[in-house]
């Protein structure tokens, strides 16, 4: 079956001064898949995501999202982004943060925005009291969930999640994984996850991409496990990875 590529990256080169981060990196993300990106610290996972969404101007290469090279508002209505530190606007309450895309992009009538915000808050497991709180009054985990609710505000077709479960307790992280799977199922989302959480990786992702040696290698977990590269071997055959894999099999 020929699948439609939502994101196409060709020959991406990113450098910071003398330091090369990505060297002719190629990647395709297909419609309806959950792609998990792994890589050591500083390997350029976040830079890759920022290059895709247009926040980082890359040196060379070509990136197309939904077949387009430059992103107008119609593309921005089709994606939702969860930033590593939440990226919530500090002068707005949680509810107002979630309402931003509804108001600014979709122009949803005011009378149902409140109710939709309530729905989203509830969906990500936040209590109603959280709605009127400012980001500075929320705990780290709650900030993550508000940010996720904002990313999901318009049921975007393409979701970027940068370390979504980092800083969450295991129960919340597991619930988060379930939520991602459910959403993917009911909305046929394409999800691009950067994560170090091996449980999330094995539980939710249909395909993995490992950034090593300035390039990306993709495949299923078992394919990557057999890859002959020291970092990949360490990563996927390390004790924590095996434990996570085992717990997945038990499920």
């Amino acid at each position: 079956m020929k699948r439609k590529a939502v994101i196409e990256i060709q020959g991406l080169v990113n450098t910071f001064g003398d330091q090369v981060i990505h060297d002719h990196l190629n990647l395709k993300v297909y419609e309806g898949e959950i792609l998990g990106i792994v890589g050591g610290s500083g390997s350029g996972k976040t830079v890759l995501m920022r290059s895709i969404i247009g926040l980082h101007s890359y040196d060379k290469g070509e990136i197309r999202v939904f077949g387009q090279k430059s992103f107008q508002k119609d593309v921005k209505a089709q994606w939702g982004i969860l930033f590593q530190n939440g990226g919530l606007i500090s002068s707005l309450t949680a509810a107002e943060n979630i309402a931003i895309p509804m108001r600014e992009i979709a122009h949803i009538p005011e009378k149902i925005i409140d109710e939709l915000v309530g729905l989203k808050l509830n969906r990500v497991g936040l209590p109603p009291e959280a709605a009127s709180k400012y980001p500075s009054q929320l705990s780290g985990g709650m900030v993550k969930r508000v940010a996720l609710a904002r990313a999901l505000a318009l049921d975007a077709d393409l979701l970027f999640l940068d370390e979504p479960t980092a800083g969450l307790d295991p129960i919340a992280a597991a619930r988060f994984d379930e939520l991602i799977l459910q959403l993917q199922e009911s909305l046929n989302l394409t999800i691009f996850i950067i994560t170090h959480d091996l449980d999330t990786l094995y539980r939710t992702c249909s395909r993995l991409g490992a950034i090593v040696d300035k390039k990306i290698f993709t495949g299923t977990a078992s394919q990557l496990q057999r890859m002959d590269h020291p970092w990949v071997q360490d990563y996927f055959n390390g004790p924590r990875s095996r434990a996570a894999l085992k717990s997945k099999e038990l499920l």
Partner: protein
Amino acid sequence: MTNQDLLKTLKKDDTLYISLSGRWTALSAEPILHTLSQIELSGVQKVCLSLQDLVKLDTTGAYILSKFINGFKEFGILVHKQDISPTALSLLKQVSDFAYEPKRDSFSPSYRRWIEGVGEKCFAGYRKSLHFIEFIGEVCLGTFRMIRHPHQFRYLSFFGFVERVGVHALPIIGLISFLIGVVLAYQGVGQLAKFGAEIFTVNLVGVSVLREVGILLTAIVVAGRSGSAFAAQIGSMKLNEEVDAIQTFGLSPVDVLVIPRITALLVALPLLAVYSGVLGILGGAVMIMNLVDISFQTFLSQLKAAVSLSTFWVGFIKAPVFAVIIGLVGCFEGLNVKGGAESVGEKTTLAVVESIFLVLVLDAAFSILFSYLGV
């Protein structure tokens, strides 16, 4: 988007057939709501919903739809759904599972809130004054510690701050002082010429620049440049948990962050005040020599007659006091930052406003003091 694209209705006896089509997504929320509000329901007993032609349904669309269906039920109208895809069904179930009415904050009457607000502000002001006094005490203790153990003083950051607070402020303070001198001289010559006393413009410029304008101007520029920078730097360090980290190393944030900044100001601000005085008089000289036909020599001898060393000292003595106030307020507000990025901006503004306010109040206090002392 026309209504035809979103749904078609057909009425047969007491049954209304509604067939949904198109994209029921967040982006078309407005036309969907509009279309739904126009459906004629009089005499309808039963509704048959068909989702067969639906291209896309998302949470927003599903939410509006489920609200609409619940509306039928309230009217006692039977609803029959057909041709629903499993994904649409699960979405509809999800939105009804997770729906809830957002709680509105209960509002007390406005006069009560106003009185409460006044009370809160008063108490906040009182608490802040206590904190500030406490902070001054801490800084004093820190200063004594530094005097007793001079090797603990952070010389490196002290010199760094002297450069940033003092050297980097030279161009702006120089320019402003020069221009103020020019302005004073121009106004002075204009008024004094009516008495044929243009030469006394030199006295006017000399005394006002040395006693008041030079030092005040310097203090205000430094408060704006450096007081704000102190508050912002320390504030972001506070947010970044750097201040907490410093504490866990057994160091005092006052010793590490506050004292080097205040001592740097204590050194730099008086020097800047002298510099400002010199350039202010220079600006005045240029203007006077242009407007009134006197030589630089005459200007200098008139200046010498007008100002004495005490004129200079009366102005200069204020500089260290202003320096300490600006440094204290800037650092204090910086350490008060908590919460988020917004707080940094708020405290930075407060630092500037409060330090300029205090500088002006203290300047007035000095004037009163000097008038009693007769200097």
